[in-house]
């Protein structure tokens, strides 16, 4: 944050300029980071500042996206003072100069020891004698590696539990996923690993992958070319903001008609239409109605958990109407007839289950699948996210959806189509194979059952991101306390002696040694024993890809705070230490498993991981040359030294052995029984998700006074009638509770919310949706986080209404 709220310094023309992809959501907006000596400022004339903007007169609307939040200052390790400005890149095809409120605050977060970053971890921290104390890397790694080796030798790899990021962007990326995968899968060999947001090591998209279709199969441009956009369990204005604003809305507003005419000669084209599948009326629906007109927006407000029935009803109907793509089905798919038989559901049955009137179902099918006036089939893009992924039987819903898409030929290279997840974080996954098989172990249940000796939470916090979270927290805290007690008794112990004491506490006393590797102290780390400080993009070089597989290099422009390190180099330190320990022990076979960590930089990790496993052609230098536009994976080759990528997948073959996409039977089978039991008992369905102003896990936001002023507590949206009946006003503190736990939040009356439903932010500071989430999972241990029912009561007036707006969040 600039020190002034009403003026900003301008970067001089010779300011150091680097590329930075936004840390947060999957869209991966391109930004420019400017850094220049603090005593200098650029001039207001366009030729005198690096932005090339003419500040000698007020800028016209839409000329720039610039605010005091985009400016900050820092003192580097040499004692030199700098200004830093981080602004959206106009030349980036993804965001085209726009910033969301989340990415737009990146400069406010930089590590300068002040503001948000005052809370950053700056050195390893060890707990002992009732306190946290700073430690050097040597001591911290010696303790971590020493205990790891003891447990590995005594009990085998599954004594070692990991809660592990698998994404791109901050806290992830190819360098860091590779380094951790190499350490944990190839080196340690444990299968007791779970992913950052769920209780097992599984894919959120097993079904579509089994059908031969990766979940990111089109380009953002396809959203500009579609006749109809489906937004299924997905709220893009708040969660993939600039994808929605820059690529979806122009289509809905008719601004891409000329582009469609040029691309699809002879075909009927017009402004796009949009269909939302969501039990909740969202901010996105309100915006879409404003942009496209109500007549071009259809909201299928399904009953929670009934998506499978919706897609099966539509599949049955389009087959009856013969609005399917028989040529495509014959040439490029298998299993059509069996899926149609298995999924058969009349529109009347579909309507009864989903609660969507038959007329709306027919309208959705007509818009999306009935041939257009020119005779061409509509180009319909199906985008989905957590409403399905955390839905009622992930595998079944996704199968039913992709069946419908395959039947209508809306994937496989067709432009303006695709069946894609919208995504959460960016992606950036390259790891050796997970040793745990499928279905993967239900790690969080194993922890509750007392299994495992050592838990490492790497860039994530299961206290806020698991199901049955209240019990999970209680057990982990209790088991960690056993270890703390043992450490407290270890007065004056050397590292070697402490390892003995820890080994005894976790193997004989039921303890759990907890390490957190993160930017900030996290709740799961704060009850533990060791914290290791990590770095973010900008403090390290990092590669990731966005929701259209667009890979970019975020360039380092400053150091991490204190002695913090990039995650990949922390993993390397652990690997090197274990290599040395096993070498000393004369165990060559084990030493060999930890070889190859002699990296000096994150680029070494990239060269070892991405280049050896994905594409040798991709180098930092070649990515740097492509700036914020990068290259869309997979890379096809080089043209004049420039990387050539892939806009759309599966133009010829799907990702199956025979190249044909597979239909999968997915009959409607009701709610998962564990969830149904809560529904039968409690009056409110508790929907959950993200809130525009906050990044999902709040890892920066909870330290940011600006964010906490707007959202001092977890949002709980409730409808007008329910609020009146329960005596709840906007700003009141409310409790939600069921058989699994209780949690709290700040009520916000939103008139569009249906009776008997509430919506809460998923991972708040005090309020955690997981406290209410049941243990219902699909066949691959994907949680049904959305399958939560609870009671709601008013706790009282928490004075939030004096400082937090209660106005409608719908435009």
């Amino acid at each position: 944050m600039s020190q002034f709220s009403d003026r900003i310094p301008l970067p001089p023309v010779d300011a150091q300029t680097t590329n930075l992809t936004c840390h947060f959501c999957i869209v991966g907006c391109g930004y420019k980071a400017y850094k220049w000596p603090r005593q200098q400022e650029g001039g207001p004339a366009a030729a005198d500042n690096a932005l090339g903007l003419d500040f000698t007169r007020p800028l016209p609307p839409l000329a720039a996206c610039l605010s005091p939040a985009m400016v900050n200052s820092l003192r580097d390790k040499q004692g030199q003072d700098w200004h830093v400005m981080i602004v959206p890149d106009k030349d980036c095809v993804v965001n085209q100069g726009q910033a969301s409120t989340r990415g737009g605050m990146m400069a406010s977060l930089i590590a300068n020891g002040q503001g948000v970053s005052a809370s950053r971890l700056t050195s390893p921290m060890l707990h002992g004698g009732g306190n946290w104390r700073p430690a050097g890397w040597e001591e911290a790694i010696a303790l971590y590696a020493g205990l790891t080796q003891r447990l590995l030798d005594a009990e085998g790899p599954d004594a070692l539990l990991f809660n592990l990021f698998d994404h791109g962007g901050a806290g992830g990326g190819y360098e860091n996923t590779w380094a951790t995968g190499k350490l944990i899968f190839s080196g340690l060999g444990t299968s007791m690993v779970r992913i950052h947001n769920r209780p097992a090591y599984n894919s959120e998209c097993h079904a579509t992958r089994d059908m031969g279709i990766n979940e990111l199969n089109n380009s953002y441009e396809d959203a500009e070319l579609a006749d109809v956009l489906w937004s299924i369990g997905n709220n893009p204005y708040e969660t993939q903001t600039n994808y929605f604003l820059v690529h979806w809305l122009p289509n809905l507003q008719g601004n891409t008609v000329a582009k469609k005419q040029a691309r699809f000669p002879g075909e009927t084209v017009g402004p796009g239409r949009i269909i939302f599948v969501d039990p909740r009326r969202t901010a996105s629906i309100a915006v879409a109605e404003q942009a496209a007109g109500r007549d071009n927006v259809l909201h299928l407000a399904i009953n929670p958990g009934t998506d499978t029935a919706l897609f099966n009803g539509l599949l049955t109907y389009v087959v009856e109407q013969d609005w399917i793509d028989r040529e495509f089905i014959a040439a490029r798919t298998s299993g059509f007839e069996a899926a149609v038989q298995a999924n058969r559901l009349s529109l009347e049955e579909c309507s009864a289950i989903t609660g969507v009137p038959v007329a709306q179902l027919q309208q959705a099918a007509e818009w999306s699948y009935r041939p257009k006036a020119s005779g061409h089939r509509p180009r319909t893009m199906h985008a989905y996210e957590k409403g399905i992924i955390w839905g009622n039987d992930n595998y079944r819903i996704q199968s039913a959806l992709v069946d419908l898409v395959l039947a209508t030929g809306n994937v496989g290279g067709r432009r303006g189509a695709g069946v894609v997840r919208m995504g959460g974080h960016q992606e950036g996954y390259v790891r050796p194979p997970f040793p745990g098989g499928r279905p993967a172990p239900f790690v969080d249940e194993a922890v509750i059952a007392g299994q495992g000796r050592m838990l490492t939470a790497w860039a994530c916090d299961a206290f806020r991101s698991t199901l049955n979270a209240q019990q999970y927290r209680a057990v982990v805290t209790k088991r960690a306390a056993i270890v703390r007690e043992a450490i407290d008794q270890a007065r004056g112990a050397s590292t070697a002696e402490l390892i003995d004491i820890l080994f005894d506490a976790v193997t004989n006393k039921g303890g759990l040694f907890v390490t957190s590797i993160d930017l900030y102290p996290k709740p799961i780390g704060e009850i533990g024993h060791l914290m290791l400080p990590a770095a973010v993009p900008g403090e390290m070089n990092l590669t990731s890809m966005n929701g259209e597989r667009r890979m970019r290099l975020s360039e380092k422009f400053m150091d991490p705070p204190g002695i913090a390190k990039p995650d990949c180099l922390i993993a390397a330190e652990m690997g090197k230490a274990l290599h040395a320990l096993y070498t000393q022990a004369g165990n060559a076979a084990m030493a060999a498993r930890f070889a190859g960590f002699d990296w000096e930089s994150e680029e070494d990790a990239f060269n070892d991981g991405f280049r050896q496993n994905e594409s040798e052609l991709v180098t930092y230098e070649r990515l740097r040359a492509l700036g914020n536009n990068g290259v869309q994976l997979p890379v096809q080759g080089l043209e004049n030294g420039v990387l050539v990528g892939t806009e759309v997948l599966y133009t010829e073959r799907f990702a199956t052995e025979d190249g044909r996409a597979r239909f999968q039977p997915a009959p409607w089978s009701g709610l998962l029984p564990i969830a149904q039991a809560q529904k039968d008992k409690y009056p409110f369905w508790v929907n959950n998700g993200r809130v525009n102003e906050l990044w999902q896990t709040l890892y920066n936001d909870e330290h940011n006074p600006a964010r906490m002023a707007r959202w001092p507590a977890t949002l709980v949206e409730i409808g007008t009638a329910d609020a009146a009946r329960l005596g709840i006003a906007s700003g009141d503190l409310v409790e939600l509770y069921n058989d699994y736990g209780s949690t709290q939040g700040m009520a916000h009356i939103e008139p569009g919310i249906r009776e008997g439903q509430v919506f809460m932010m998923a991972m708040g500071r005090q309020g955690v949706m997981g406290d209410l989430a049941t243990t219902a999972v699909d066949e691959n241990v994907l949680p049904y986080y959305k399958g939560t029912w609870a009671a709601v009561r008013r706790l009282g007036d928490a004075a939030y209404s004096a400082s937090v707006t209660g106005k409608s969040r719908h435009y």
Partner: protein
Amino acid sequence: MTLSRRNFFKLTGLGAAAAATPGAFAQNAAPGNAGALGYPVQAIARLDALVVNQPVDFAYPDAASACQLLRLGHAVPGGIGPQQDIVAYSILCPHMGCPTSYESSSRRYKCGCHFSVFDPEMGGQQVIGQATQDLPRVLLELAEDGSIRAVGMVGLVYGRQSNVQFQEVSA
């Protein structure tokens, strides 16, 4: 008057801090610095002429900066006047500068470009939207003669390096 006001802010740093509102993003600014610039003092309207929920257009701190004055009929954060119900804001969206419009039925400022929404009854707090600051707020005072004067601002007006850089242009 202008000079003394300017020095007052400069010396005491009370400009933003003294009138701090719940506006979310304003809280990140170092206290007091919003008043460090030399803002003009400008009469906008007379108290007795204001009608509740009917915005009054004016420009401040120069002719190129469109603002609105609002009387809300009940005390609001940062409000002045006998009922502490009078506030004023820049109406340029602090995200990318499109003019916001006041929706009197919901008492919200709305931007049609990227659908940001602001609450004038809560210090200009962003209700939802893509800006990284709240609606810039005009600091007001009520003179003894019943006139309402603009005396400063909290938050950067869109399209500027500094709020007051165009005063000479406008004068």
